[in-house]
């Protein structure tokens, strides 16, 4: 079985050759945490992604380019506090990444942070990748021309058809295995054992919800309301509301009369925002939404289903409210009204990842996290940031995960 060398682009190679190559000591010595050779590479890669023609065609690559700017990278490394109080951070060694098939750019974040941590990396990229993913790989290859040779030697992206022997060999050789892309992929890849000192970092299926503080909504300026709705629209409609961070339920937190009014105003603005952007769903998606929402009604989980055109569907969740975690088609918003954030606590599970919110104070959110007592929720973000990738993801500080710590106690 030969692997297709996508980055650096080259002739097909065997697993053995690949492993021998990436683990050999590169020119200029082994990579270190925050390695200058990697920083330089990421910085020029970032410039390439931020070129107007690329960023315009794939807005998500613009976000990625922004994330990888030299200054941002420097800040991320500083947060490690390498060397402070006798704590040193070292690369783990060889990191193997299994990115999801359908989200085009996540593998780049995962790989870039691991490279920045000084690791050699092997990323399995889909052979069927298209669009943004293809552009990323082209940009990486183009950046290579001016890069230090250590990059091409230690950083590899390969494609191979589903093959247990290859996955098994790579798994045994790596020091850290990173698996994105759903419960089934995680379980499937985990069948292959790791070396005793190695470990997995997994990103399985997650779901997310949102909430509006009703009082804060009523006090907000028209401009703040419009901005919140625009942000929420992005959170919902990008990735067809199917990303792990896309909110499915929108909770109205406050007194029910005020909640009713706030919701009406909010949904009116949302309809305008969606129409203004010309976002539509096609007939197949419209049918999907009908099947899903009628199904909720049939099961007694929804008391009201309403379509304002095909693009926006609203579901009123039945009392007592259950969290709605399933994908219901792009642009399906499940509403529920609760008196306080405390009422959400028993609904939250470990699977719940992102809580997008409008109008809560930092103190209220902090109190909510305390009350959750670890039940779930990995990140709380304002409307409009649900899908913004951060180096702390799913509760993991990725730079820490991609490094190991050496402690120095001089005695």
């Amino acid at each position, binding site marked *: 079985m030969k692997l297709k060398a996508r980055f650096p682009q080259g002739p097909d190679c065997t697993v053995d050759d690949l492993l021998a190559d990436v683990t050999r000591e590169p020119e200029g010595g082994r990579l270190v945490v925050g390695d200058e050779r990697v920083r330089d590479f990421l910085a020029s890669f970032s410039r390439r992604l931020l070129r107007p023609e690329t960023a315009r065609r794939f807005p998500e690559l613009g976000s990625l380019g922004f994330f990888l700017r030299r200054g941002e990278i420097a800040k991320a490394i500083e947060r490690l506090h390498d060397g402070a109080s006798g704590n040193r951070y070292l690369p783990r060694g060889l990191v193997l990444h299994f990115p*999801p*098939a359908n989200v085009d750019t996540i593998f780049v974040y995962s790989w870039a942070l691991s490279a920045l941590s000084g690791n050699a990396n092997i990323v399995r990229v889909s052979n069927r990748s298209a669009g943004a993913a293809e552009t990323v790989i082209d940009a990486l290859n183009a950046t290579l021309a001016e890069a230090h040779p250590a990059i091409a030697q230690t950083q590899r992206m390969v494609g191979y058809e589903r093959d247990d022997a290859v996955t098994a060999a790579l798994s045994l050789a790596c020091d850290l295995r990173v698996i*994105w892309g759903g419960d089934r992929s995680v379980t499937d890849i985990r069948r292959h054992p790791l070396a005793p000192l190695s470990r997995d970092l997994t*990103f399985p299926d997650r779901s997310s919800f949102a909430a509006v503080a009703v009082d804060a909504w009523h006090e907000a300026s028209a401009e703040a309301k419009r901005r919140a709705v625009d942000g929420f629209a992005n959170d919902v409609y990008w990735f067809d509301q199917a990303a792990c961070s896309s909110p499915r339920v929108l909770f109205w937190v406050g007194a029910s009369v005020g909640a009713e009014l706030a919701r009406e105003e909010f949904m009116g603005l949302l309809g305008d925002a969606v129409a203004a952007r010309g976002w539509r769903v096609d007939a197949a998606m419209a049918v*999907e939404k009908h099947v899903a929402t009628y199904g909720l009604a049939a099961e007694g989980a929804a008391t009201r289903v309403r379509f304002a055109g095909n693009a926006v569907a609203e579901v009123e969740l039945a009392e007592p409210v259950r969290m709605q975690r399933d994908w219901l088609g792009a642009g399906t918003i499940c509403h529920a009204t609760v008196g306080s954030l405390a009422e959400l606590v028993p609904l939250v599970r470990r699977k719940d990842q992102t809580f997008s919110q409008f109008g809560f104070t930092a103190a209220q959110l902090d109190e909510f996290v305390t009350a959750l007592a670890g039940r779930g929720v990995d990140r709380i973000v304002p409307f409009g940031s649900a899908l913004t990738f951060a180096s702390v993801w*799913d509760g993991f500080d990725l730079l820490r995960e991609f490094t190991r710590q050496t402690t120095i106690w001089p005695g």
Partner: protein
Amino acid sequence: MTTVVDGVFTLSQADKQERLLPELARLTEHHRRNGEAYARILSATGHGPDRDYRSVADLPWLPVRLFKTQVLKSIPDESVFKVLTSSGTTGDVSRIFLDKEAAAAQTRMLSRTIQAAIGRQRLPMLIADTPAVIKDRKSFSARGAGVLGMMNFGRDHVWALDPQEKPDVEAIKGFLAKHGGQPFLIFGFTFMVWLYLYEVAREHKLDLSNGVLIHSGGWKKLIDQSVDNAAFRQAFANHTGLTRIHNFYGMVEQIGVVYLEGPQGNSLYCPDFADVIIRDPETWQELPPGKPGLVEVVSTLPESYPGHALLTEDLGVVHGIDDGDWPGKRFSILGRLPRAEARGCSDTFSGGQA
């Protein structure tokens, strides 16, 4: 052309509307009272018991795929006599619950509809399939079930394919030698009829001119070969002499209803107890003749499950009303909506995180 006494293609569109509307409104109430899940859907979608319906198009419909995700029935468990299932492409299966009366009505209405094409006698029958499809009666496919259902309308059955799915030219020749001089029935799935029977008949210059062909199953597999209904009919007429061809459209979720192609071809007709409504998938309003949209099917037969008004995932177009071989709407099926897919993450979409 067969004269239809006691036929099921008799009502003009105006008469049909008048007859269907109260009956379908009654069924809506009947299923509301007898099925909790259906009642909840009506209540959630604003169809209260006091709502007045002025036309068939105003009645609430269910997306047909709901029968794959929910148990929807209007009879108690102990009355369930038969559960019809259909396998979908994604592996999930519709389940349609029938009691004794519903099962009997299904068979009765199906017979009356098919008789419009073939008359009341059982004709010698050539099946464009292999006996293997009905071999294991416990687990046969939708194709096997279709073949078995149609076999009731014929006699002296002969299979055009052998158990290894190879055309059995000798068997076909034997059948034609014995029965080819008088009317006989041919049945098969559209792509099987084309790939096996047509090709064989053409190659061996077989005379099918006394045949009546009934076929169904859709054109998807023939599109690649640029064969549509008109080309299909033309080819059979030119090369085998077969001109009495009736395509039909139907689904397990709508028991006892087949939308049958009229004698002149290229249009499907609705039996008196059923109708189609073409909807704009953006506004959900009914579309006039000539405008393609999503096909809603209505029928007065489903008493045991709420299947009297179903939105299919098929695209279709009404060509005309009261202007064809038979009264009522004449229409065509144009294809199927693709299944919606999302870019995001979940097991269903084998995607990832964002």
